[in-house]
C-alpha cells in the first residue's frame, strides 16, 4: 500500500513559544490518514531544544505508523544542529 504523506511548512521559529502549536498540528496530521510527514523548513529561522523535542516526538509517532519524518530546505545552521544532536537517523534531511 502506498504511504500517505502529509506536507507541513512552518514559518518563523520552531522553539518554545511555537512548539505546542506545531506539535498539535503535526499530531493532527498523523492522527489522520498520513503516515509520513514532509516538513518544509525553508521559512524557519531558528530551531531550539523545544523544537528538537517536537521533531523527535513527531518522528517517533510517524515510525510507529510505518512512515518517516522528512525535513527539507533547512538552513545550514539548523541542519548542523540536527546532525550534532544525532537526530539525522530519525529526522531524514533532504536537500
Amino acid at each position: 500500500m502506498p504511504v500517505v504523506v502529509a506536507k507541513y511548512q512552518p514559518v518563523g521559529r520552531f522553539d518554545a513559544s511555537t512548539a505546542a502549536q506545531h506539535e498539535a498540528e503535526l499530531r493532527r496530521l498523523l492522527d489522520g490518514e498520513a503516515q509520513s510527514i514532509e516538513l518544509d523548513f525553508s521559512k524557519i529561522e531558528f530551531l531550539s531544544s523545544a523544537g528538537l523535542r517536537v521533531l523527535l516526538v513527531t518522528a517517533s509517532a510517524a515510525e510507529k505508523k510505518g512512515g518517516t519524518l522528512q525535513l527539507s530546505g533547512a538552513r545550514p545552521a539548523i541542519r548542523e544542529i540536527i546532525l550534532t544532536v544525532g537526530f539525522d537517523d530519525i529526522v531524514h534531511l533532504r536537500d
Partner: protein
Amino acid sequence: MKPTTLTYGVDDTPPLLELASLGLQQVLMGAAGWVMMATVLATLSVSLLDTQSMLRMGMIVTGLGAMLQANRRGPVGSGYLCPPIIAPAFFSTTILAGGGFGLATLFGMTTVAGAIEVVLARLLPRIRFLFPPEVIGVVMVMVGIAVLPTGFPRLLADPATLSAGADQGRNVAVGIVTLATMTGCTVWGRGLVKLLPLLVGIFTGVAAALALGCVPPTALPSIMNEPWIGWPHRAVSGFAFEWSLLLPFTIACVASSLKNVGDLTMCQKINDSDWKRTDMASVSRGASVLGIVNIASGLLGTVSHNASSSNIGLAVASGATSRSIAYSFGALMVLCAFLPKVAATITALPPPITGAAVIYCACFMMLAGIQLLTSRLLDTRRILMAGCALAFGLSAGLMPHLYVNAPHFLKPILNSPVSFSALVALVLNYLMQLGNTRRCRLTLTAAEDNYATLRDAMLEFGASVGARKEAITAATESLHHVMESLATGLASGEITVDIAFDEYHLDLDVSYQGQAIELVKTRPDRNTLLNDPTGLAKLSGWLLGQRADRVRIKTDADRCHVLLRLTN
C-alpha cells in the same frame, strides 16, 4: 585552508613545465606595467635609449622583488606571489621630479621614498585599527576600477593607442578575440589551458592580429634592431635630492602603502577560504619588501613600484597562487633584462591584446573587493564611509578636470583614484567611529518573548561595529538558547545582556536573578528528552556550547551570569 578554486595554492609547487609557463604568464602580465612606464616617460621626453634602460632595470627590480616577497622567514617578505609593478601613485611625482629636475633627482627621490615606505611598513601593525575590512574592501574595488582606463582604450582600439592608418574595427576584433579566449579558457578550459588563460589569450590575440593585419609596421623592426644579449645599464649616473619634492613623495608613499595593504590583504584572502581578517604582521613584512624595491629602483635607475593588482588577479583567474611561481617569474624577469629583444617584443604587443589582459584581471580584482565589503554587516556610518570613498575616488578618475586647481602637494593623491578613495575612507572611518561604542547593554524581562528584540538588537550592534554576519548569527542563536533555558523557570524579573566587541571576539554576559543553567557536557539521549522533565533544560544547556566557542557560568552574591565568547 586552500580554496577549492585553486589548482596550485600558495604552499604547492607545480611541475617544472607548468612552473615555467605560469611564471612566463605572470611576466607577460607585468608587461602592462612596462607599457605604462614607457607612456609616463614619454611625457618627460626621455630618450628611447634611457627608456629602454629604465625598463630593463625595472625588470631586475621586479624580478628580485618578487622573489624577496615570496620569502616566508625573517623580517621581510609576506610569503605570497605578489610581484611589484610600476606604481600609479607615483606617476605625478615621477613627472614632477623627472620633468622639473631631471632623472638624477627622480632616482634620488625614489630611493628616499623607498626608505619612507619601509618605515611606514613597520608601523602598520600599530595602526591596524585604521584599516578595517570595509576600508580595505574599498581600496580593493578601486584597485580594480583604476586599471580600467588603461585597459579599455587599448581593448577597444582608441585611435590614440594605434599607429597611423590602423583599422580600428579590426583592432577591436583582435581585442575581443583575446578577451573571449582568456575568458573561455578560464570557464571551460582544462589542464594547462585553464592554468594559462592569459598566455593562451595573448598567443591567440597575436595570431588574430597577424591574420587581420593589425600588427603595427614598426613592431618587427623594433625587435630586429635589438641585440639578443645585452648588459643593462643605468640611464644616468648620480643622485640628487630636492627638498621641495619631499612632501609630494611622502604623500605618494602613504597612498602607495594603502594600495599595498589592499593587495597584500587580497593575497591572504585568495589563499585561505577561512580568511576572516587581515594579518597585519604579514602585510607589514610584505610592505617592507616594496619599500626595499623602491630603494633598489632609485639605486638602479628606474621608477617607483608597488604591488601589482593585475598579477594577483591573474593568479586568482588561473587558479595558481603558488609562491614557487614568484621564483620562476623572478628568474625570467631578471633574464629578460639581459635580453633586449624580449623587452622590445613585449612593448611591441598590439594595444588591444594588452588591453584585454588588463580588463580580464580587473574583473577579479573588483569583485574580490566587493566580496570583502559585503562580508561585514554595514550600518549607516559604514555605508556612507564606503559610498563616499568610492564616489570621490571615481570622481577623480572620471572627472579629473575638477581637481586641476588643487594644491600641488595633493596632486599625488588626486591623480590616483585608488589613493584618493583610500584617503577618504581612512579619514571618514576614523571620524565616523567617534562616539561609536563597541559595547551595548540590553535589558529584557524573563516573562516576555524577547526573540525579535534580541535579533534586531544584535543585527543593529553588529552593523555598528562591522562584525561578520556569521558571528552575529551564531551569537544571536546562542542568546536565544540561553533565553529559552531561562524561560523554563530559572530566571525571574530583569535579565541584562552585555555585549562587547573587539574585532576578534564577541563577548556576551547574560546576567539574571535565579538558578544557574546546568551546562551539560554529554548530549542528552532521546529517552531523556522524551521522558525526563529536566530533559529539555539539559538539551538547552548542551546546545549552548555548540555555537559559542566558550561558555562559562558564574554566580555572584545575588546574580547568575552566563558568559559566552564567540570568534568574529
